[in-house]
């Protein structure tokens, strides 16, 4: 298949399936809380709807950054799809994408001039420390397999079995990272309810549509990376089932746990990272 066509198809799949998974996440949360909840397609409908809604640009915004950061946010995750499902390239670039994601959160929050956005921007810097689990996972995967290339990792697992069996604590660490990116999760300090919707608060209409499009792609990518890195060659059906199972688990956790305050959120994630890293190193040595 032509590379550009391959990229477009993968982005469309990531958006459509990611939206449905986020819809499923909301549905699970609602059912756990004894509410009927919105239909599963609601997130997809919302994403598309926002492109046709009225858009206004607040006078307090720094326009180039306010508009540009949303396009950059989208470009960052388009890069993720290219490096992941399309090229099956390096995990290091995926790690870089998560790092840039934090910078985007920071700049999106500071660009609108809203106090909610500014506070979210400060928290984005604070919560960057919580990306430690991802860095630890990469280091441990490299120690175990000797590679950070996604296609080499798939080949490794087809011979030696899935890494989720040999490195379960590293998988838990990655699941903590996935949880920290899920909507309404306990670590969600940049979009906590006390900040309305955090750095997204003053992004309306088309800008919000593009953010929702990117959120869907980002969610799909997170689950794809986890399944490929820890479960290996599981095929298309395995990927779909795996993504649905993880989304349901995340929805359940998000529904039954309160949002932590910023200090507790970062400390909890770092504590999980330290315990799981030490445990995995011990397992590797033994």
């Amino acid at each position, binding site marked *: 298949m032509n590379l*550009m066509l391959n*990229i477009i198809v993968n982005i469309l799949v990531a958006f459509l399936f990611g939206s449905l998974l986020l819809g499923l996440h909301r549905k699970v949360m609602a059912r756990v809380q004894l509410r009927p909840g919105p239909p599963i397609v609601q997130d997809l409908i919302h994403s598309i709807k926002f*492109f046709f*809604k009225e858009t206004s640009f607040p006078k*307090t915004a720094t326009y180039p950054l306010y508009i540009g950061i949303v396009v950059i946010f*989208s470009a960052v995750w388009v890069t993720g799809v290219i490096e992941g499902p399309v090229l099956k390239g390096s995990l290091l670039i995926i790690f870089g994408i998560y790092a840039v994601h934090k910078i985007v959160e920071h700049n999106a929050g500071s660009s609108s001039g809203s106090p909610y956005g500014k506070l979210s921007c400060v928290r984005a810097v604070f919560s960057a420390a919580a990306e430690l689990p991802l860095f630890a996972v990469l280091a441990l995967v490299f120690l175990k397999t000797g590679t950070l290339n996604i296609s080499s990792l798939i080949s490794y697992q087809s011979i030696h079995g899935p890494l989720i069996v040999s490195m379960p604590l590293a998988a838990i660490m990655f699941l903590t990272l996935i949880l920290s990116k899920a909507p309404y999760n306990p670590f969600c300090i940049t979009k906590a309810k006390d900040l309305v919707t955090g750095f997204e608060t003053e992004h309306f209409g*088309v800008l919000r549509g*593009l953010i929702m499009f990117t959120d869907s792609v980002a969610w799909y990518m997170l689950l794809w990376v986890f399944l490929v890195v820890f479960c290996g060659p599981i095929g298309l059906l395995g990927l779909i089932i795996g993504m649905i199972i993880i989304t349901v688990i995340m929805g359940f956790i998000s529904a039954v746990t309160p949002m932590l305050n910023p200090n507790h959120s970062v400390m909890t994630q770092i504590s999980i990272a330290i315990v799981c890293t030490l445990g995995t190193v011990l397992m590797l040595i033994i």
Partner: protein
Amino acid sequence: MDKVRILGYIICVASLLGIIIGFFTSEYLTIALAIICIPLFIFSFGLINMAKPKKDEVKERVEEPFTGY
């Protein structure tokens, strides 16, 4: 036609051209064009299709919800 919509059409045409060119270029150039042009194309689609506020509501939309902060 307002400035935003004209800008939307310009970005839309430019990004669409970039995507089409990307079908026939080398791997690295295709990736670069995809990263730049696909988000811009989606963004321009929104700029072209977004609803506009009524004339007497424009000021209110731009100033809200910041009044008082």
